[in-house]
């Protein structure tokens, strides 16, 4: 306590005594409130308290003076003194609380941190954008009941070509330049890196047909995965990803293909502002076959037709290779490039970025 404060406290105490008896008790209360208010900490407040409530304090003195009074006066005056006492005590407690509060606030203020500093520890990594697309495609098709399948990437000629109605030497084989490996399959033909995910149509459908519990159930499956072709430039990679889709049932038509794929693209790009067109084409394993083109109605790619997928009604010979009766079962298949979908989705111009493992690229998708 500094000298100035001591002096004030002392003055207040004296002035209280000066009023006793003549000016009523209200002044004691007022002076006590004032005296407490100037106390800046707990010890000075205890000192000030002593001036009123201590053994020689003003109120104690008043009580001492009661002995000389008549019972009636004692009664009246006693009640008044008690009122004063409790008012002073109230003021004291309020001041104590305020001081404690101030002290806490001061302590907390001194503990303040810079909340703008970055959090401690490691960041979170991220999923590759093509895989993000893969996952989104799975989720969209799962929402209408498609299963997901995957299988070998080193594949037998029969599954990659012949079962898909594309026998050796067929001109359609030149549509897909094939990597071969130094091993032969059980048919004596060299094994190859699958040129598309379409062999999974055959593998999945045959597994489905072989399982008696599936009898009468439709085939609804997508098969995303890695595929390979002898090709390399800004728009072709020797390795890329496709997603194959297959829906076979008793009555799945080309019109259904149009419906499903159009709906898929609108969900994938999260806009109805895109047009989809189906253009006659040729694939050995579908007939009728269609190239699917899409066109955005807004955004940077607005107005351009972009090839997005090959598709068609599954060829009856292929349905037969599935182990199904093509008279009874029909349906569609499609194959889309996941890189292509990803590039259009995020506006990526160069296919090679996907395979460089450059963190500056990958971090943009986390």
């Amino acid at each position, binding site marked *: 306590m500094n000298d100035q404060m001591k002096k004030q406290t002392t003055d207040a105490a004296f002035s209280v005594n000066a009023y006793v008896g003549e000016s009523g008790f209200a002044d004691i209360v007022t002076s006590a409130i004032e005296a407490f208010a100037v106390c800046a900490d707990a010890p000075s407040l205890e000192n000030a308290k002593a001036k009123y409530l201590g053994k020689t304090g003003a109120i104690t003195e008043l009580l001492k003076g009661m002995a000389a009074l008549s019972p009636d006066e004692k009664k009246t005056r006693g009640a008044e003194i008690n009122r004063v006492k409790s008012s002073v005590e109230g003021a004291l407690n309020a001041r104590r609380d305020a001081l404690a509060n101030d002290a806490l606030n001061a302590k907390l203020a001194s503990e303040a941190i810079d909340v703008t*500093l970055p959090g401690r520890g*490691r960041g979170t990594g*991220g999923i590759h954008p093509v895989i993000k697309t893969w996952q989104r495609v799975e989720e969209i098709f799962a929402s209408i009941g498609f299963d997901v399948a995957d299988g070998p*990437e*080193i594949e037998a000629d029969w599954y990659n070509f012949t079962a898909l109605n594309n026998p050796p030497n067929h001109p359609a084989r030149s549509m897909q330049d094939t990597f071969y*490996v130094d*091993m032969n399959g059980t048919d004596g033909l060299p094994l190859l890196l699958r040129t598309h995910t379409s062999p999974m149509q055959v593998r999945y459908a045959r597994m489905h047909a072989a399982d008696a519990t599936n009898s009468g159930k439709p085939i609804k499956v997508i098969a995303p995965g890695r595929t390979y072709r002898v090709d390399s430039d800004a728009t072709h990679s020797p390795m890329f990803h496709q997603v194959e889709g297959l829906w076979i049932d008793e009555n799945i038509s080309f019109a259904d293909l149009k419906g499903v794929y159009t709906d898929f693209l609108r969900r994938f790009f999260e806009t109805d502002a895109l047009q989809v067109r189906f*253009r006659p*084409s040729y694939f050995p394993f579908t007939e009728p076959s269609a190239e699917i083109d899409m066109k955005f109605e807004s955004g940077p790619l607005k107005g351009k037709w972009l090839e997005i997928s090959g598709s068609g009604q599954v060829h009856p010979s292929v349905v037969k290779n599935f182990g199904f009766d093509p008279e009874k079962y029909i349906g569609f298949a499609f194959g889309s490039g996941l890189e292509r979908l990803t590039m259009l989705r995020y506006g990526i111009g160069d296919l090679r970025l996907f395979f460089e*493992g450059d963190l500056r690229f990958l971090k943009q998708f986390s």
Partner: protein
Amino acid sequence: MKFPESWLRSFCNPSMTTDELAHALTMAGLEVEDVAPAAPPFTGIVVGEIMTREKHPNADRLSVCTVNVGSHAAAPLQIVCGAPNARVGIKIPCALVGAALPPGADGKPFMIKRAKMRDVESNGMLCSARELGISDAADGLLELAADAPVGEDIREFLKLNDSKFEIKLTPNKADCLSVYGVARELHAITGAPLVPEAKGAVSVTLNDVLPVKVLASDLCGRFAGRVIRGVNAKAPTPAWMRERLEKSGQRSITALVDISNYVMLEVGRPTHVFDLDKVHGALEVRWGRAGETLKLLNGNTVQLDDKVGVIADERAVESLAGIMGGDSTSVSDDTQNVYVEAAFWHPLAIQGRSRRFNFSTDAGHRFERGVDWETIPAHLDRISALILEICGGQAGPIDDQIVNVPARPPVTMRIARAQKVIGVNIAADEMAAIFTRLGLLHTRTPQTFTVTPPSYRFDIEIEEDLIEEIARIYGFDNIPALPPMARAAMRSKPEATNSLHDLRARIAAADYYEVINYSFVDESWERDIVGNGNPIKLLNPIASQMAVMRSSLVPGLLANVRHNASHKADEVRVFELGKVFVRDAGVADGALSVEGVAQPLKLAGLAWGSALPEQWGATKRAVDFFDVKSDIAALLPHGARFDSAAHPLLHPGRGARISVNGAPIGWLGELHPKHLAAFELTHAPIVFELDVSPLLARPLPDFKLVAKTPMVRRDFALVVENSVNSDALLSTLRSAVPAHTREIVIFDVYRGAGLADGQKSVAIRVLMQDTERTLTETEIEQACQTMLAAAKAAHGAALRV
């Protein structure tokens, strides 16, 4: 295939703009890849004739010409010209004053003004083909035909208001590999009338026949030819033919070659013209024989065998059947007598052959897809008539042998089936109209159509082929996009299985970025880094660094570090989920397997550089084994063990094999320092590779009641030899008092002052509890003593005091 629009319209001319025409073809399956104007825009250029030519008085290289431009000027124009071929009498393109030449690089047309060149007035400009933008050749003035009408606009005269179409044809559209074929299709699409093919009228004035024996009916189904004598091989190709060839992307060569090419483009008929005088004796058509060779027109010499068809004479093989002619009997400027051949080669006898020899030809491309056999004589007449017209000569009769042409069995299409497959109830009458427009002869019942395919169609064998034709001409755009109808069955992801995406999300959450690396790698990676001396090799890799299939994902991740380190990254954490490929005689053909190859899915990851990104709140230190061990702990199945083990990729003292129930499922460790140099690294990353399949099981939680009795904690430090591994120590302690031990944790490992060399102190916290009651002090003390005794017995452990 390329061709000028005007040529197509000469056969079928629907009232459509160029763009509409291109769109109509595209939407019928003949994808128009490009439409380019035949010439860039220009105006004011007409046919001129040089009347006089004088040397320029002030310039050696210039000449001063007067040029007749007909009605465009009252008198011949004086024009200064620098071209060396400027001479009196030739007709050339003349740009008049005011003409706008094709735009230059700045996009602005070049305007012709009256000018003085070295003091001589010039009133226009004589032009080369390059200046008109129709050719890159800058060989002087473009000399026009002698009969070019003076004064005619050059765009009209050269038919430059035309477009060049480029169509990408699918392998089934063999019938459209000609302008006439496309016209036939255009007729079907639009209904615009189709002009009949040009007929060649040939008067036969010779009796000569070149004897031909067809010895292989599985190679050649029909063979026809004719002798033409007395041709002028030096005759120029007429301008109209040159123009069409050039706009079709074919360079004009000699008249005989051009005529053959022209007929191929016009009607899709490949033919071959032999120099008759170089043919020795009769021809035979047969399979090749091992040991035979043939020098081709393109100069290549090919080795033949019995898989390749040939045409041979009495001395040698003269032609690769259906693909390319031979060098020795090819026509030249001196050729006088020719034999013109047109044949039907079975597609199966041609397919794949030119690819075997590593080249492709227009003829082979057509024959392997199928060429009409019925029109052979008509087309032979067409080419003969053109030869006679252009080169002169006398024609012999057509010698035509039909050996074995394909059957064309009728194909039946059920109307209801077509409607079901397409998903639209197209009316039967409309189907009939479509077949008629396509030229498909058919009979009809209330339920079916039966079509006899024409000989030019090689893609109509089954019902679906007809359904496709209906859908295509009906228009895919006119087929509705139906919302799919299916039974609403609920589906759920199995809770006890992680999906691959779950795995990815977990490892990504530990700050790893996913990468996708090529499945084929440099052979040295496999041999020197992974230790696989016998990787699966590609037979046709595109580059040596992509020559073998990888058996580990890790080298690719190391290359990712190199790449990012070169871009100043000081922290790299990446992972990849992908298949690896290993020869494995134990793998049989199966539903999802290919004999001899194991193709398991792996998850590999790598951490390199600082353990945490550089930050204010943490001290910088390098990532180590234990950081990554904790990162992958969340992925591993319950009970996974880490045991010290050697691995070719790893530091011998800092690598672990990870196993579950004794079966190895992967490994983790610090890269062996010997591999750093190959990836230009100065310090070692921590790498791991795990089999994915064991990571996919996620057992349902096995709930146990939470005990209400108090948990007791005891800490003690055990001194053991350094060689005692902590897993074994914990295991001993745990099994010593199994009933009450809830948790045993190592919270410190200390080596140094106060301990002997080769010793370490392991600080251990034990939590004990009985689920039924509170443990007594005595019980706790006894349990501790039991544990200590067990540790002492098994590991020589002493309580540190």
